[in-house]
């Protein structure tokens, strides 16, 4: 494995989003992963609709919460195509699901894999390089006060409450860390990113790891 790897360097990661006063982190995480895997396959990076997932993934609760795997199960089973953000813009509140014809241009999710990588973060690094950015859940209670740097404490595992996108890692310094894109805007953390120590399953980052296949 390379000592340092970041899908941003391959132009395969969308810009940091701001979910505003909507608990739709799970949808941002899923859509971010899909955008990245689409770009990884050689397609131009394009912004896809988070609002479509919030409104239409009926087994989730829209802006009141949801799960990465339930959203991906819905996309896989219904074969709903994810349309462009410009065609279904973000409103930061749950709305009525807009349907598009099957002939409408969009991105189709073929499959996904969800695993527990706790105790196997090196294997998770390998999957990140191979599969693309990974949608994960974390315990983000202490993130309310985060400004920057590598998070190593104050973060439990097995209490997932937030969804984010792991885009890379860096093991070249004294403390190896995951590079994680959040959806709270660029004024939070390191330009919208949080760094989490690799090893020890800090924040439960390896508990529930999901990769998308298109």
């Amino acid at each position, binding site marked *: 494995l390379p000592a340092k790897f970041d899908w941003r360097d391959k132009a395969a990661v969308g810009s940091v989003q701001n979910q505003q006063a909507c608990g739709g982190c799970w949808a941002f995480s899923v859509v971010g992963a899909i955008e990245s895997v689409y770009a990884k396959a050689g397609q131009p990076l394009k912004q896809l609709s988070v609002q479509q997932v919030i409104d239409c993934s009926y087994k989730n*609760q829209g802006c009141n919460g949801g799960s990465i795997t*339930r959203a991906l199960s819905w996309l896989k089973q219904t074969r709903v195509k994810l349309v462009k953000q410009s065609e279904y813009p973000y409103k930061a509140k749950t709305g009525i699901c807009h349907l598009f014809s099957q002939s409408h241009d969009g991105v189709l999710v073929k499959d996904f894999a969800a695993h527990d990588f706790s105790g196997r973060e090196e294997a998770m690094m390998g999957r990140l390089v191979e599969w693309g950015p990974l949608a994960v859940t974390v315990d983000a209670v*202490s993130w309310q006060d*985060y400004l920057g740097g590598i998070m190593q*404490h104050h973060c439990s595992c097995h209490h997932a409450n937030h969804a984010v996108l792991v885009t890379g890692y860096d093991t070249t310094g*004294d*403390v190896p860390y995951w590079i994680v894109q959040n959806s709270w805007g660029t004024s939070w953390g390191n330009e919208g990113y949080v760094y989490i120590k690799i090893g020890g399953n800090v924040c439960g980052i390896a508990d529930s790891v999901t990769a998308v296949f298109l």
Partner: protein
Amino acid sequence: KLHSDYYHRRRSYFENSIKRHAYLNSFSTDKDSAKYGINQFSDLSINEFRELYLTATAETGPPYSGLKTEE
């Protein structure tokens, strides 16, 4: 009065956040450690932050056991 109540409540949450930062930063021993301080969430209570932003649930998948030969 309404505005005054609102102001005092927010100020109280903000002051609580300052106390939290001091505790959280006491563990930051080296230059790379995470830093905690005032940001856009500092005037939210812990409960407000949880209700608004910590809304994801997780279904635990099977432990990763490596790739199968055919993969």
